[in-house]
Protein backbone atom coordinates (compact mmCIF):
# COMPACT_ATOMS: atom_id res chain seq x y z
CA UNK A 1 0.00 0.00 0.00
CA UNK A 2 1.23 3.45 -0.82
CA UNK A 3 1.45 4.61 2.75
CA UNK A 4 4.18 2.12 3.43
CA UNK A 5 6.34 3.25 0.55
CA UNK A 6 7.90 6.03 2.61
CA UNK A 7 9.31 8.20 -0.16
CA UNK A 8 12.65 9.76 0.54
CA UNK A 9 11.32 13.27 0.90
CA UNK A 10 9.40 12.30 4.00
CA UNK A 11 8.68 12.89 6.73
CA UNK A 12 7.21 16.32 6.69
CA UNK A 13 5.08 16.80 9.75
CA UNK A 14 1.44 17.31 8.89
CA UNK A 15 0.65 20.73 10.29
CA UNK A 16 -2.07 20.81 12.89
CA UNK A 17 -5.30 22.56 12.05
CA UNK A 18 -5.13 25.67 14.10
CA UNK A 19 -1.65 26.93 13.24
CA UNK A 20 -2.66 26.53 9.61
CA UNK A 21 -5.80 28.50 10.31
CA UNK A 22 -3.79 31.23 11.97
CA UNK A 23 -1.46 31.29 9.00
CA UNK A 24 -4.36 31.46 6.56
CA UNK A 25 -6.04 34.28 8.43
CA UNK A 26 -2.70 36.06 8.71
CA UNK A 27 -2.17 35.74 4.98
CA UNK A 28 -5.66 37.05 4.27
CA UNK A 29 -5.14 40.07 6.50
CA UNK A 30 -1.72 40.72 5.00
CA UNK A 31 -3.19 40.52 1.51
CA UNK A 32 -6.07 42.82 2.45
CA UNK A 33 -3.65 45.26 4.06
CA UNK A 34 -1.42 45.23 1.01
CA UNK A 35 -4.42 45.87 -1.18
CA UNK A 36 -5.56 48.60 1.17
CA UNK A 37 -2.38 50.50 0.54
CA UNK A 38 -3.03 50.33 -3.17
CA UNK A 39 -6.70 51.19 -3.04
CA UNK A 40 -7.26 54.75 -1.92
CA UNK A 41 -10.98 54.26 -1.44
CA UNK A 42 -10.68 51.35 0.95
CA UNK A 43 -7.91 53.10 2.86
CA UNK A 44 -10.04 56.22 3.27
CA UNK A 45 -13.00 54.11 4.42
CA UNK A 46 -11.02 52.21 7.00
CA UNK A 47 -9.42 55.41 8.27
CA UNK A 48 -12.81 57.07 8.75
CA UNK A 49 -14.15 54.04 10.61
CA UNK A 50 -11.10 53.90 12.82
CA UNK A 51 -11.41 57.55 13.75
CA UNK A 52 -15.12 57.22 14.58
CA UNK A 53 -14.52 54.02 16.51
CA UNK A 54 -11.91 55.76 18.65
CA UNK A 55 -14.25 58.70 19.18
CA UNK A 56 -17.06 56.37 20.22
CA UNK A 57 -14.83 54.56 22.69
CA UNK A 58 -13.44 57.73 24.19
CA UNK A 59 -16.70 59.69 24.02
CA UNK A 60 -16.74 60.37 27.74
CA UNK A 61 -13.22 61.74 27.63
CA UNK A 62 -13.63 63.76 24.46
CA UNK A 63 -16.96 65.32 25.32
CA UNK A 64 -16.67 68.61 27.18
CA UNK A 65 -20.16 68.51 28.67
CA UNK A 66 -22.98 66.15 29.38
CA UNK A 67 -24.81 66.08 26.04
CA UNK A 68 -28.27 66.42 27.54
CA UNK A 69 -27.47 68.83 30.34
CA UNK A 70 -28.97 72.28 30.13
CA UNK A 71 -26.05 74.61 30.56
CA UNK A 72 -25.86 78.03 32.06
CA UNK A 73 -23.37 80.80 31.60
CA UNK A 74 -21.33 82.03 34.61
CA UNK A 75 -23.70 84.96 34.62
CA UNK A 76 -26.47 82.54 35.46
CA UNK A 77 -28.15 83.07 32.12
CA UNK A 78 -29.25 80.07 30.03
CA UNK A 79 -26.45 79.23 27.58
CA UNK A 80 -28.79 79.17 24.60
CA UNK A 81 -27.82 79.64 20.98
CA UNK A 82 -24.21 80.41 21.77
CA UNK A 83 -22.01 80.66 18.69
CA UNK A 84 -19.04 78.28 18.40
CA UNK A 85 -16.12 79.32 20.57
CA UNK A 86 -13.64 78.16 23.15
CA UNK A 87 -16.21 77.23 25.79
CA UNK A 88 -18.62 75.53 23.45
CA UNK A 89 -16.67 74.22 20.50
CA UNK A 90 -19.68 74.02 18.21
CA UNK A 91 -21.96 76.31 20.13
CA UNK A 92 -25.13 75.38 21.97
CA UNK A 93 -28.72 74.58 21.14
CA UNK A 94 -31.64 76.82 21.89
CA UNK A 95 -32.09 74.97 25.17
CA UNK A 96 -28.47 75.43 26.14
CA UNK A 97 -27.05 72.02 25.32
CA UNK A 98 -23.50 71.62 24.04
CA UNK A 99 -23.60 70.64 20.34
CA UNK A 100 -20.04 69.30 20.23
CA UNK A 101 -20.69 66.92 23.11
CA UNK A 102 -23.90 65.73 21.51
CA UNK A 103 -22.01 65.09 18.31
CA UNK A 104 -19.37 63.02 20.10
CA UNK A 105 -21.96 60.95 21.93
CA UNK A 106 -23.98 60.49 18.75
CA UNK A 107 -21.07 58.50 17.34
CA UNK A 108 -21.83 55.72 19.77
CA UNK A 109 -25.42 55.17 18.78
CA UNK A 110 -24.57 55.49 15.09
CA UNK A 111 -21.87 52.81 15.24
CA UNK A 112 -23.97 50.61 17.47
CA UNK A 113 -26.93 50.72 15.10
CA UNK A 114 -24.77 50.39 11.99
CA UNK A 115 -22.58 47.53 13.10
CA UNK A 116 -25.34 45.47 14.72
CA UNK A 117 -27.58 45.79 11.70
CA UNK A 118 -24.68 44.95 9.39
CA UNK A 119 -23.87 41.79 11.32
CA UNK A 120 -27.48 40.65 11.34
CA UNK A 121 -28.08 41.47 7.68
CA UNK A 122 -24.86 39.86 6.51
CA UNK A 123 -25.23 36.67 8.53
CA UNK A 124 -28.94 36.21 7.84
CA UNK A 125 -28.46 36.94 4.15
CA UNK A 126 -25.45 34.66 3.89
CA UNK A 127 -27.07 31.70 5.59
CA UNK A 128 -30.29 32.01 3.60
CA UNK A 129 -28.42 32.56 0.32
CA UNK A 130 -26.12 29.62 0.96
CA UNK A 131 -28.88 27.20 1.91
CA UNK A 132 -31.25 28.42 -0.76
CA UNK A 133 -28.67 28.33 -3.53
CA UNK A 134 -27.08 25.05 -2.58
CA UNK A 135 -30.15 22.98 -1.93
CA UNK A 136 -32.46 24.62 -4.43
CA UNK A 137 -35.89 23.10 -4.97
CA UNK A 138 -38.65 23.71 -2.44
CA UNK A 139 -36.46 25.30 0.25
CA UNK A 140 -35.17 27.73 -2.31
CA UNK A 141 -38.62 28.56 -3.59
CA UNK A 142 -40.03 29.24 -0.15
CA UNK A 143 -37.09 31.37 0.92
CA UNK A 144 -37.10 33.38 -2.27
CA UNK A 145 -40.82 34.04 -1.92
CA UNK A 146 -40.12 35.38 1.57
CA UNK A 147 -37.45 37.56 0.04
CA UNK A 148 -39.89 38.85 -2.58
CA UNK A 149 -42.37 39.79 0.10
CA UNK A 150 -39.75 41.51 2.24
CA UNK A 151 -38.62 43.51 -0.79
CA UNK A 152 -42.21 44.49 -1.50
CA UNK A 153 -42.63 46.23 1.84
CA UNK A 154 -41.77 49.91 1.49
CA UNK A 155 -38.71 50.35 3.64
CA UNK A 156 -39.04 53.59 5.53
CA UNK A 157 -42.86 53.48 5.90
CA UNK A 158 -42.54 49.98 7.34
CA UNK A 159 -39.98 51.12 9.88
CA UNK A 160 -42.12 54.15 10.75
CA UNK A 161 -45.24 52.10 11.33
CA UNK A 162 -43.32 49.56 13.37
CA UNK A 163 -41.65 52.19 15.51
CA UNK A 164 -44.79 54.27 15.73
CA UNK A 165 -46.74 51.42 17.27
CA UNK A 166 -44.05 49.45 19.07
CA UNK A 167 -42.33 52.48 20.49
CA UNK A 168 -38.91 53.87 19.79
CA UNK A 169 -35.95 51.63 20.41
CA UNK A 170 -32.66 50.99 18.73
CA UNK A 171 -33.31 47.25 18.79
CA UNK A 172 -36.48 47.66 16.79
CA UNK A 173 -34.67 49.77 14.22
CA UNK A 174 -31.97 47.13 13.89
CA UNK A 175 -34.59 44.41 13.63
CA UNK A 176 -36.57 46.30 11.01
CA UNK A 177 -33.48 47.04 8.94
CA UNK A 178 -32.42 43.40 9.12
CA UNK A 179 -35.91 42.18 8.29
CA UNK A 180 -36.07 44.21 5.11
CA UNK A 181 -32.46 44.19 3.96
CA UNK A 182 -31.45 40.54 4.21
CA UNK A 183 -33.06 39.63 0.87
CA UNK A 184 -30.63 41.79 -1.11
CA UNK A 185 -27.69 39.96 0.40
CA UNK A 186 -29.40 36.60 0.18
CA UNK A 187 -30.24 37.00 -3.49
CA UNK A 188 -26.75 37.97 -4.53
CA UNK A 189 -25.18 35.22 -2.44
CA UNK A 190 -27.68 32.73 -3.77
CA UNK A 191 -26.82 33.48 -7.37
CA UNK A 192 -23.14 33.29 -6.55
CA UNK A 193 -23.69 29.92 -4.87
CA UNK A 194 -25.68 28.73 -7.86
CA UNK A 195 -22.71 29.39 -10.10
CA UNK A 196 -20.15 28.08 -7.62
CA UNK A 197 -22.17 24.91 -7.20
CA UNK A 198 -21.65 24.14 -10.88
CA UNK A 199 -17.91 24.80 -10.77
CA UNK A 200 -15.76 21.88 -11.75
CA UNK A 201 -13.87 21.87 -8.46
CA UNK A 202 -17.08 21.56 -6.49
CA UNK A 203 -18.10 18.69 -8.70
CA UNK A 204 -14.64 17.26 -8.08
CA UNK A 205 -15.23 17.39 -4.35
CA UNK A 206 -18.56 15.64 -4.83
CA UNK A 207 -17.09 12.89 -6.97
CA UNK A 208 -14.44 12.19 -4.35
CA UNK A 209 -17.18 11.71 -1.81
CA UNK A 210 -17.18 15.02 0.05
CA UNK A 211 -20.19 15.48 2.31
CA UNK A 212 -22.75 18.18 1.65
CA UNK A 213 -21.53 19.96 4.75
CA UNK A 214 -17.95 19.92 3.56
CA UNK A 215 -18.84 21.16 0.08
CA UNK A 216 -20.92 23.99 1.47
CA UNK A 217 -18.54 25.20 4.12
CA UNK A 218 -15.10 24.25 2.83
CA UNK A 219 -15.49 24.69 -0.89
CA UNK A 220 -18.27 27.23 -1.36
CA UNK A 221 -18.54 29.44 1.72
CA UNK A 222 -14.99 30.89 1.61
CA UNK A 223 -15.74 32.22 -1.85
CA UNK A 224 -18.84 34.10 -0.80
CA UNK A 225 -17.57 35.62 2.44
CA UNK A 226 -16.23 38.67 0.60
CA UNK A 227 -19.74 39.26 -0.71
CA UNK A 228 -21.16 39.00 2.79
CA UNK A 229 -18.70 41.64 3.94
CA UNK A 230 -19.57 43.77 0.96
CA UNK A 231 -23.25 43.73 1.75
CA UNK A 232 -22.54 44.10 5.44
CA UNK A 233 -20.62 47.28 4.88
CA UNK A 234 -23.41 48.68 2.75
CA UNK A 235 -25.94 47.74 5.44
CA UNK A 236 -24.00 49.81 7.99
CA UNK A 237 -24.84 52.89 5.99
CA UNK A 238 -28.45 51.93 5.48
CA UNK A 239 -28.99 51.31 9.17
CA UNK A 240 -27.43 54.61 10.20
CA UNK A 241 -29.47 56.50 7.60
CA UNK A 242 -32.62 54.75 8.73
CA UNK A 243 -32.01 55.53 12.36
CA UNK A 244 -31.36 59.16 11.44
CA UNK A 245 -34.55 59.36 9.37
CA UNK A 246 -36.66 57.79 12.07
CA UNK A 247 -35.25 60.10 14.72
CA UNK A 248 -35.71 63.06 12.43
CA UNK A 249 -39.36 62.15 12.00
CA UNK A 250 -39.70 62.27 15.75
CA UNK A 251 -39.98 58.57 16.38
CA UNK A 252 -36.54 58.26 17.93
CA UNK A 253 -36.04 57.37 21.53
CA UNK A 254 -35.91 60.50 23.62
CA UNK A 255 -33.08 59.54 25.94
CA UNK A 256 -30.51 58.58 23.30
CA UNK A 257 -28.43 61.29 21.71
CA UNK A 258 -28.11 60.50 18.03
CA UNK A 259 -27.25 62.57 15.00
CA UNK A 260 -30.77 62.11 13.70
CA UNK A 261 -32.13 63.40 17.00
CA UNK A 262 -29.84 66.44 16.78
CA UNK A 263 -31.11 67.21 13.29
CA UNK A 264 -34.70 66.82 14.39
CA UNK A 265 -34.05 69.09 17.34
CA UNK A 266 -32.47 71.68 15.07
CA UNK A 267 -35.25 71.46 12.51
CA UNK A 268 -38.01 71.73 15.09
CA UNK A 269 -36.29 74.63 16.83
CA UNK A 270 -36.08 76.83 13.76
CA UNK A 271 -32.32 76.51 13.47
CA UNK A 272 -32.77 76.71 9.72
CA UNK A 273 -34.56 80.01 9.58
CA UNK A 274 -32.16 81.45 12.15
CA UNK A 275 -29.15 80.37 10.15
CA UNK A 276 -27.66 78.23 12.93
CA UNK A 277 -25.53 76.25 10.53
CA UNK A 278 -23.26 75.19 13.40
CA UNK A 279 -26.16 73.16 14.74
CA UNK A 280 -27.35 71.17 11.75
CA UNK A 281 -24.30 70.95 9.49
CA UNK A 282 -21.95 68.89 11.76
CA UNK A 283 -24.31 65.97 12.49
CA UNK A 284 -25.21 65.71 8.80
CA UNK A 285 -21.55 65.66 7.83
CA UNK A 286 -20.86 62.96 10.39
CA UNK A 287 -23.59 60.80 8.89
CA UNK A 288 -22.19 61.39 5.40
CA UNK A 289 -18.70 60.39 6.57
CA UNK A 290 -19.70 57.19 8.30
CA UNK A 291 -22.01 56.08 5.52
CA UNK A 292 -19.62 56.94 2.74
CA UNK A 293 -16.87 55.05 4.55
CA UNK A 294 -19.00 51.93 4.15
CA UNK A 295 -19.42 52.65 0.46
CA UNK A 296 -15.68 53.23 0.07
CA UNK A 297 -14.84 49.98 1.81
CA UNK A 298 -17.33 48.05 -0.27
CA UNK A 299 -15.80 49.57 -3.39
CA UNK A 300 -12.35 48.58 -2.22
CA UNK A 301 -13.64 45.10 -1.49
CA UNK A 302 -14.97 44.79 -4.99
CA UNK A 303 -11.58 45.73 -6.31
CA UNK A 304 -9.90 43.11 -4.18
CA UNK A 305 -12.24 40.21 -4.64
CA UNK A 306 -13.90 40.91 -7.95
CA UNK A 307 -10.97 42.20 -9.95
CA UNK A 308 -12.79 41.66 -13.21
CA UNK A 309 -14.84 44.69 -12.38
CA UNK A 310 -11.66 46.67 -12.51
CA UNK A 311 -10.84 48.48 -15.68
Amino acid sequence: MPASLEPATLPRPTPALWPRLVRAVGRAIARAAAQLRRDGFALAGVTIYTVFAVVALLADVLATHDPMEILFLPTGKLAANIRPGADFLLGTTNLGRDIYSQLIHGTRSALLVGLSAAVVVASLGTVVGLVSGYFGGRIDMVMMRFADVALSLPFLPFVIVLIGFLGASINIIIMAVALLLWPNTARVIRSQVLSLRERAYVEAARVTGASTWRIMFVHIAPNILPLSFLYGSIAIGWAILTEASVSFLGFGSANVVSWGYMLQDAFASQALSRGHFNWFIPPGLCIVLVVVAGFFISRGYEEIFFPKLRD
Partner: protein
Amino acid sequence: MRLLLERLLHTLLVVWAVVTILFLMFRLMPGSPLAAYLHDNLSEEQQNLILQQFGLDRPLWEQYFIYLGNLLQGELGVSFFQRRPVLDVLLAVFPNTIVLTLSSLIVAYVFGVLAGAYLAWRRNSVIERAAVPAVLAIRAAPEFWIGMVLLAIFSFELGWLPSGGANSPGMFYDSEIDRFLSLDFLRHLILPVLTLALYLQGLPLLLMRSNMLEVMHDEFVTMARMKGLSEWSIVIRHAARNALLPVLTAFALGVGVSVGGNVVVEIVFSWPGIGRLLVNAVATLDYPLAQGAFLLIALVLIFMNFVADMLYSMLDPRVSHARVA
Protein backbone atom coordinates in the same frame (compact mmCIF):
# COMPACT_ATOMS: atom_id res chain seq x y z
CA MET B 1 -47.20 35.84 -22.65
CA ARG B 2 -46.46 32.99 -20.33
CA LEU B 3 -43.94 35.15 -18.56
CA LEU B 4 -46.49 37.92 -18.16
CA LEU B 5 -49.09 35.62 -16.60
CA GLU B 6 -46.53 34.01 -14.37
CA ARG B 7 -45.28 37.36 -13.08
CA LEU B 8 -48.83 38.61 -12.68
CA LEU B 9 -49.73 35.62 -10.57
CA HIS B 10 -46.58 36.07 -8.57
CA THR B 11 -47.40 39.74 -8.04
CA LEU B 12 -50.89 38.91 -6.79
CA LEU B 13 -49.35 36.48 -4.34
CA VAL B 14 -47.05 39.18 -3.03
CA VAL B 15 -49.95 41.61 -2.73
CA TRP B 16 -51.85 39.07 -0.70
CA ALA B 17 -48.82 38.49 1.55
CA VAL B 18 -48.28 42.20 2.10
CA VAL B 19 -51.96 42.78 2.79
CA THR B 20 -51.90 39.99 5.34
CA ILE B 21 -48.78 41.30 7.02
CA LEU B 22 -50.44 44.68 7.18
CA PHE B 23 -53.52 43.18 8.81
CA LEU B 24 -51.47 41.36 11.41
CA MET B 25 -49.25 44.33 12.03
CA PHE B 26 -52.15 46.64 12.78
CA ARG B 27 -54.26 44.19 14.76
CA LEU B 28 -51.67 42.42 16.86
CA MET B 29 -49.53 45.34 17.90
CA PRO B 30 -49.26 45.78 21.62
CA GLY B 31 -51.08 48.89 22.74
CA SER B 32 -53.71 48.65 20.03
CA PRO B 33 -54.05 51.97 18.25
CA LEU B 34 -57.72 51.80 18.99
CA ALA B 35 -56.98 52.29 22.65
CA ALA B 36 -56.10 55.86 21.93
CA TYR B 37 -59.36 56.36 20.17
CA LEU B 38 -61.55 54.87 22.82
CA HIS B 39 -61.52 57.59 25.34
CA ASP B 40 -62.40 56.71 28.88
CA ASN B 41 -65.13 59.24 28.92
CA LEU B 42 -67.10 57.28 26.34
CA SER B 43 -69.74 55.05 27.75
CA GLU B 44 -69.35 51.30 27.38
CA GLU B 45 -72.19 51.30 24.93
CA GLN B 46 -70.50 53.89 22.79
CA GLN B 47 -67.26 51.93 22.97
CA ASN B 48 -68.98 48.77 21.84
CA LEU B 49 -70.63 50.65 19.04
CA ILE B 50 -67.25 51.74 17.76
CA LEU B 51 -65.83 48.24 18.16
CA GLN B 52 -68.76 46.91 16.17
CA GLN B 53 -68.39 49.61 13.59
CA PHE B 54 -64.87 48.34 12.91
CA GLY B 55 -65.82 44.72 13.37
CA LEU B 56 -63.37 44.44 16.24
CA ASP B 57 -65.73 42.39 18.38
CA ARG B 58 -65.47 39.40 16.05
CA PRO B 59 -62.86 36.63 16.18
CA LEU B 60 -59.58 37.44 14.42
CA TRP B 61 -60.08 35.16 11.42
CA GLU B 62 -63.48 36.65 10.79
CA GLN B 63 -62.01 40.13 11.00
CA TYR B 64 -59.42 39.02 8.47
CA PHE B 65 -62.04 38.04 5.91
CA ILE B 66 -64.06 41.17 6.52
CA TYR B 67 -60.86 43.12 6.00
CA LEU B 68 -60.06 41.31 2.76
CA GLY B 69 -63.61 41.81 1.55
CA ASN B 70 -63.47 45.50 2.35
CA LEU B 71 -60.17 45.88 0.54
CA LEU B 72 -61.55 44.21 -2.56
CA GLN B 73 -64.35 46.79 -2.60
CA GLY B 74 -61.86 49.60 -2.11
CA GLU B 75 -63.30 50.19 1.36
CA LEU B 76 -60.49 51.44 3.58
CA GLY B 77 -62.55 52.76 6.44
CA VAL B 78 -62.88 56.26 7.82
CA SER B 79 -60.06 58.39 9.19
CA PHE B 80 -60.39 58.77 12.95
CA PHE B 81 -59.45 62.39 12.95
CA GLN B 82 -60.42 63.73 9.59
CA ARG B 83 -63.80 61.99 9.71
CA ARG B 84 -63.57 61.37 6.00
CA PRO B 85 -63.24 58.11 4.05
CA VAL B 86 -59.58 57.14 4.02
CA LEU B 87 -59.65 56.66 0.26
CA ASP B 88 -60.73 60.28 -0.26
CA VAL B 89 -57.97 61.54 2.01
CA LEU B 90 -55.39 59.46 0.20
CA LEU B 91 -56.51 60.41 -3.27
CA ALA B 92 -56.46 64.09 -2.36
CA VAL B 93 -52.72 64.05 -1.62
CA PHE B 94 -51.55 61.23 -3.88
CA PRO B 95 -51.12 63.39 -7.01
CA ASN B 96 -48.77 65.70 -5.12
CA THR B 97 -46.53 62.76 -4.28
CA ILE B 98 -46.64 61.42 -7.83
CA VAL B 99 -45.71 64.78 -9.31
CA LEU B 100 -42.87 65.20 -6.85
CA THR B 101 -41.59 61.65 -7.38
CA LEU B 102 -41.74 61.65 -11.15
CA SER B 103 -40.23 65.10 -11.59
CA SER B 104 -37.31 64.35 -9.32
CA LEU B 105 -36.72 60.90 -10.83
CA ILE B 106 -36.76 62.27 -14.35
CA VAL B 107 -34.34 65.05 -13.46
CA ALA B 108 -32.13 62.58 -11.59
CA TYR B 109 -32.10 59.94 -14.33
CA VAL B 110 -31.57 62.29 -17.24
CA PHE B 111 -28.66 63.86 -15.43
CA GLY B 112 -27.36 60.57 -14.03
CA VAL B 113 -27.40 58.76 -17.36
CA LEU B 114 -25.67 61.54 -19.23
CA ALA B 115 -23.12 62.20 -16.51
CA GLY B 116 -22.50 58.47 -16.03
CA ALA B 117 -21.90 57.93 -19.73
CA TYR B 118 -19.65 60.97 -19.83
CA LEU B 119 -17.59 59.77 -16.86
CA ALA B 120 -17.20 56.34 -18.41
CA TRP B 121 -16.04 57.93 -21.60
CA ARG B 122 -13.57 60.13 -19.67
CA ARG B 123 -12.27 57.17 -17.68
CA ASN B 124 -9.33 58.04 -15.41
CA SER B 125 -9.52 61.76 -16.09
CA VAL B 126 -9.24 64.16 -13.16
CA ILE B 127 -12.94 64.90 -13.32
CA GLU B 128 -13.80 61.21 -13.23
CA ARG B 129 -11.54 60.57 -10.28
CA ALA B 130 -13.10 63.42 -8.34
CA ALA B 131 -16.68 62.74 -9.36
CA VAL B 132 -17.00 59.17 -8.11
CA PRO B 133 -16.27 59.87 -4.42
CA ALA B 134 -18.36 63.03 -4.63
CA VAL B 135 -21.33 61.09 -5.96
CA LEU B 136 -20.86 58.44 -3.30
CA ALA B 137 -20.77 61.15 -0.63
CA ILE B 138 -24.02 62.71 -1.86
CA ARG B 139 -25.60 59.28 -1.87
CA ALA B 140 -24.43 58.81 1.71
CA ALA B 141 -26.14 62.00 2.87
CA PRO B 142 -29.57 61.69 4.49
CA GLU B 143 -32.17 63.12 2.10
CA PHE B 144 -33.75 65.25 4.77
CA TRP B 145 -30.43 66.80 5.64
CA ILE B 146 -29.79 67.75 2.02
CA GLY B 147 -33.26 69.28 2.10
CA MET B 148 -32.47 71.17 5.32
CA VAL B 149 -29.28 72.60 3.89
CA LEU B 150 -30.98 73.68 0.66
CA LEU B 151 -33.86 75.12 2.64
CA ALA B 152 -31.58 77.10 4.93
CA ILE B 153 -29.65 78.51 1.99
CA PHE B 154 -32.18 79.12 -0.77
CA SER B 155 -35.22 79.86 1.28
CA PHE B 156 -34.05 81.41 4.52
CA GLU B 157 -30.65 82.94 3.67
CA LEU B 158 -31.33 84.02 0.11
CA GLY B 159 -35.10 84.10 0.24
CA TRP B 160 -35.39 82.96 -3.36
CA LEU B 161 -37.86 80.16 -2.90
CA PRO B 162 -40.76 79.35 -0.56
CA SER B 163 -39.95 77.29 2.50
CA GLY B 164 -42.69 74.71 2.35
CA GLY B 165 -46.05 73.49 1.18
CA ALA B 166 -47.20 72.91 -2.35
CA ASN B 167 -49.04 76.18 -2.83
CA SER B 168 -49.08 79.54 -1.21
CA PRO B 169 -51.99 80.02 1.14
CA GLY B 170 -55.08 81.47 -0.41
CA MET B 171 -54.45 80.25 -3.93
CA PHE B 172 -57.30 78.46 -5.68
CA TYR B 173 -57.39 76.75 -9.04
CA ASP B 174 -60.10 75.53 -11.38
CA SER B 175 -58.54 72.11 -11.71
CA GLU B 176 -55.61 70.01 -10.50
CA ILE B 177 -53.94 70.44 -13.89
CA ASP B 178 -54.15 74.21 -13.59
CA ARG B 179 -52.66 73.94 -10.15
CA PHE B 180 -49.76 71.79 -11.26
CA LEU B 181 -49.02 74.17 -14.12
CA SER B 182 -49.16 77.29 -12.01
CA LEU B 183 -45.96 79.22 -11.42
CA ASP B 184 -46.65 79.19 -7.70
CA PHE B 185 -46.73 75.39 -7.63
CA LEU B 186 -43.55 75.14 -9.66
CA ARG B 187 -41.75 77.51 -7.30
CA HIS B 188 -42.76 75.28 -4.41
CA LEU B 189 -41.67 72.22 -6.34
CA ILE B 190 -38.11 73.34 -7.07
CA LEU B 191 -36.43 72.72 -3.71
CA PRO B 192 -37.97 69.32 -2.93
CA VAL B 193 -37.28 68.14 -6.47
CA LEU B 194 -33.71 69.38 -6.26
CA THR B 195 -33.26 67.62 -2.92
CA LEU B 196 -34.61 64.31 -4.19
CA ALA B 197 -32.84 64.55 -7.53
CA LEU B 198 -29.52 65.19 -5.80
CA TYR B 199 -30.03 62.10 -3.74
CA LEU B 200 -31.41 59.95 -6.56
CA GLN B 201 -28.93 60.77 -9.33
CA GLY B 202 -26.19 58.70 -7.74
CA LEU B 203 -27.70 55.35 -8.65
CA PRO B 204 -28.26 55.93 -12.39
CA LEU B 205 -24.93 57.72 -12.62
CA LEU B 206 -22.88 54.96 -11.05
CA LEU B 207 -24.89 52.26 -12.77
CA MET B 208 -24.54 53.88 -16.17
CA ARG B 209 -20.86 54.48 -15.63
CA SER B 210 -20.03 50.93 -14.62
CA ASN B 211 -22.28 49.41 -17.30
CA MET B 212 -20.64 51.57 -19.93
CA LEU B 213 -17.18 50.61 -18.73
CA GLU B 214 -18.16 46.97 -18.88
CA VAL B 215 -19.82 47.24 -22.27
CA MET B 216 -16.90 49.18 -23.71
CA HIS B 217 -14.83 46.06 -23.07
CA ASP B 218 -17.29 43.82 -24.85
CA GLU B 219 -16.20 42.26 -28.05
CA PHE B 220 -18.97 43.85 -30.09
CA VAL B 221 -17.75 47.33 -29.21
CA THR B 222 -14.23 46.35 -30.30
CA MET B 223 -15.81 45.07 -33.50
CA ALA B 224 -17.62 48.37 -34.00
CA ARG B 225 -14.21 50.06 -33.81
CA MET B 226 -12.76 47.62 -36.32
CA LYS B 227 -15.64 48.37 -38.63
CA GLY B 228 -14.54 51.99 -38.54
CA LEU B 229 -17.91 53.17 -37.25
CA SER B 230 -18.04 56.70 -35.95
CA GLU B 231 -17.41 57.38 -32.27
CA TRP B 232 -21.07 58.41 -32.04
CA SER B 233 -22.29 55.05 -33.34
CA ILE B 234 -19.94 53.17 -31.05
CA VAL B 235 -20.68 55.07 -27.87
CA ILE B 236 -24.37 55.78 -28.35
CA ARG B 237 -25.82 53.11 -30.64
CA HIS B 238 -23.86 50.21 -29.22
CA ALA B 239 -22.35 50.93 -25.81
CA ALA B 240 -24.99 53.25 -24.36
CA ARG B 241 -27.92 51.29 -25.77
CA ASN B 242 -26.70 48.17 -24.01
CA ALA B 243 -25.69 49.97 -20.83
CA LEU B 244 -29.07 51.67 -20.59
CA LEU B 245 -31.11 48.48 -20.16
CA PRO B 246 -30.49 48.00 -16.43
CA VAL B 247 -30.84 51.74 -15.82
CA LEU B 248 -34.37 51.75 -17.21
CA THR B 249 -35.25 48.89 -14.92
CA ALA B 250 -33.75 50.83 -12.04
CA PHE B 251 -35.94 53.79 -12.99
CA ALA B 252 -39.11 51.74 -12.73
CA LEU B 253 -37.96 50.30 -9.42
CA GLY B 254 -37.03 53.82 -8.33
CA VAL B 255 -40.60 55.07 -8.82
CA GLY B 256 -41.86 52.37 -6.50
CA VAL B 257 -39.25 52.96 -3.84
CA SER B 258 -39.44 56.75 -3.95
CA VAL B 259 -43.16 57.04 -3.38
CA GLY B 260 -42.58 55.72 0.13
CA GLY B 261 -39.01 56.88 0.46
CA ASN B 262 -39.94 60.53 -0.01
CA VAL B 263 -41.40 60.64 3.47
CA VAL B 264 -38.59 62.64 5.04
CA VAL B 265 -38.40 65.13 2.21
CA GLU B 266 -42.13 65.68 2.33
CA ILE B 267 -41.74 66.44 6.03
CA VAL B 268 -38.88 68.88 5.54
CA PHE B 269 -40.77 70.83 2.91
CA SER B 270 -44.23 70.31 4.44
CA TRP B 271 -45.18 68.80 1.11
CA PRO B 272 -48.78 67.59 1.31
CA GLY B 273 -48.04 64.08 0.07
CA ILE B 274 -48.72 60.53 1.01
CA GLY B 275 -45.55 60.13 3.09
CA ARG B 276 -46.28 63.12 5.26
CA LEU B 277 -49.82 61.81 5.63
CA LEU B 278 -48.49 58.47 6.84
CA VAL B 279 -46.16 60.04 9.38
CA ASN B 280 -48.92 62.25 10.76
CA ALA B 281 -51.35 59.34 10.87
CA VAL B 282 -48.87 57.21 12.79
CA ALA B 283 -48.01 60.07 15.13
CA THR B 284 -51.69 60.67 15.91
CA LEU B 285 -52.48 56.94 15.96
CA ASP B 286 -55.05 57.41 13.18
CA TYR B 287 -54.98 53.76 12.39
CA PRO B 288 -57.29 53.43 9.37
CA LEU B 289 -55.48 56.30 7.67
CA ALA B 290 -52.02 54.91 8.46
CA GLN B 291 -53.04 51.52 7.19
CA GLY B 292 -54.49 52.98 4.01
CA ALA B 293 -51.45 55.13 3.34
CA PHE B 294 -49.11 52.22 3.92
CA LEU B 295 -51.17 50.01 1.68
CA LEU B 296 -51.16 52.54 -1.14
CA ILE B 297 -47.40 53.01 -0.89
CA ALA B 298 -46.87 49.25 -0.86
CA LEU B 299 -49.15 48.70 -3.85
CA VAL B 300 -47.28 51.28 -5.90
CA LEU B 301 -44.00 49.59 -4.96
CA ILE B 302 -45.26 46.13 -5.90
CA PHE B 303 -46.76 47.38 -9.13
CA MET B 304 -43.53 49.11 -10.13
CA ASN B 305 -41.52 45.99 -9.31
CA PHE B 306 -43.78 44.18 -11.73
CA VAL B 307 -43.39 46.89 -14.36
CA ALA B 308 -39.61 46.80 -13.99
CA ASP B 309 -39.63 43.07 -14.45
CA MET B 310 -41.74 43.28 -17.58
CA LEU B 311 -39.78 46.22 -18.92
CA TYR B 312 -36.57 44.30 -18.70
CA SER B 313 -37.89 41.29 -20.52
CA MET B 314 -39.46 43.48 -23.18
CA LEU B 315 -36.37 45.56 -23.83
CA ASP B 316 -33.84 42.74 -23.85
CA PRO B 317 -34.29 40.72 -27.02
CA ARG B 318 -32.45 37.82 -25.39
CA VAL B 319 -35.48 37.42 -23.15
CA SER B 320 -38.30 38.70 -25.32
CA HIS B 321 -37.20 36.81 -28.42
CA ALA B 322 -36.18 33.54 -26.86
CA ARG B 323 -36.59 31.08 -29.70
CA VAL B 324 -38.53 28.04 -28.66
CA ALA B 325 -38.10 26.02 -31.84
